[in-house]
């Protein structure tokens, strides 16, 4: 998933090259926004988290280990920031979260079919640690090894967490009549 020229861009970013940073932004803006959106189910929150993520990346290039994959680092920041955001917004009720579609554009609303909406709602009802693994596997297309790298957990734990996440998701979908 890491493009070969990421490394060069990152080297330029460390030297303070804003154009290089913008090139990374172009490359990772959409996946980061989507990961945050699937974790938060609110486009406004996802937008703010995406902004925070890139700011963190920009400010912390010095602590980035170039031997590791860049996407692992940025996805980990995205998931951590999303979970922090959820903790801060803990006072919001689940119902509020489920109706967070209000902020979506008409195009987004129109294109989110019933199944997608059901899946998204069910995702919001499972714990963030399980949601994160689903987001990485199914929405970001990460392999077990990549998920292990992002979440910094052993591959075996990735498999068990993914299995549990799917079971929980299935239970939620069954409960709401979306899955038989």
């Amino acid at each position, binding site marked *: 998933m890491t493009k070969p020229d990421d490394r060069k861009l990152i080297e330029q970013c460390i030297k303070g090259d804003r154009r290089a940073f913008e090139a990374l932004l172009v490359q990772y803006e959409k996946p980061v926004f989507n990961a945050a959106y699937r974790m938060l189910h609110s486009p406004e929150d996802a*937008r703010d988290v995406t902004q925070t993520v890139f700011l963190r990346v920009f400010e912390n290039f010095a602590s980035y280990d170039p031997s590791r994959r860049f996407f692992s680092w940025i996805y980990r920041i995205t998931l951590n920031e999303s979970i922090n955001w959820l903790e801060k917004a803990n006072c919001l009720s689940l119902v509020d979260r489920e109706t967070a579609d209000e902020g979506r554009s008409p195009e987004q609303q129109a294109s989110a079919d019933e199944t997608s909406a059901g899946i998204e709602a069910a995702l919001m009802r499972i714990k963030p640690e399980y949601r994160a693994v689903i987001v990485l596997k199914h929405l970001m297309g990460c392999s077990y090894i990549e998920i292990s790298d992002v979440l910094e957990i052993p591959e075996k734990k990735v498999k068990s967490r993914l299995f549990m996440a799917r079971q929980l998701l299935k239970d939620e979908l069954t409960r709401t009549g979306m899955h038989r």
Partner: protein
Amino acid sequence: MTIEQKYIDWINADIDGEIGQADKVKLDAFLEESAEGRAMHADLTRIGQSLDAVEQLQPPPFLRQRIMNSLPQEQNKGGNFLQTLLANPVLRYAASFVAGAFLAMSVVGSNTISEATFDNMGSLVGTMTDPASLGPAADSIEITSNEIAGTVSLRSTGSMLVLDFDLVSGGEVEIVANYTDRSIWFNGFAQLESSGTSVSAEAGRVKLQMQGKRRYAVFLQNNSGRQTQIDLKFMSGNELLHESTLNYEGAAE
């Protein structure tokens, strides 16, 4: 009957495309015999397919510009635009200010602003060199429409109100700032770029036209220091894109 863990692992690995060939053969043999195994495989496959089919959303318009605008300034440039404007490279920004003011003067009718408006430009720039005189924003708005996005902040320094525009627009946008307090008058314009924004003023109103990513400031003389408000309208052609009011609570006694 409970399915053995190794089969559960293989079912998941199969769905995820991460099963080895030897394990796949064993899994297929197991599924041949186990209805429960087949049901689990089918269930998880359906859920996996539903998840894979969830569409990727496009990030909101202007998110990229918003992120770039939020990055800390480079160290050698220091601080935000207004701090920069008011700090070291005074002459550079003074030149920009003068250019903006001349541009403004060229489009402002002589009957709408007295010549005195521009008489003290030197002292104005002098005053602006003191960053300590610039307090936090008295009020600010954030705009996130499809056509224009960014922030407008209202600051006060001495007898001056400063409208700090940090915006990006896809097409040409006209911004009208109305202030009903007739003791307030337009006293200058500065922009970070050398061009790209045009400004005109008349009593009680400043009009700006911009396109693209722009950072600029409008200076309003507010000698009375009293409470006031500035109504902002953002237009594209005849279409109203956004409308907001910035409030100034008045100078502290």
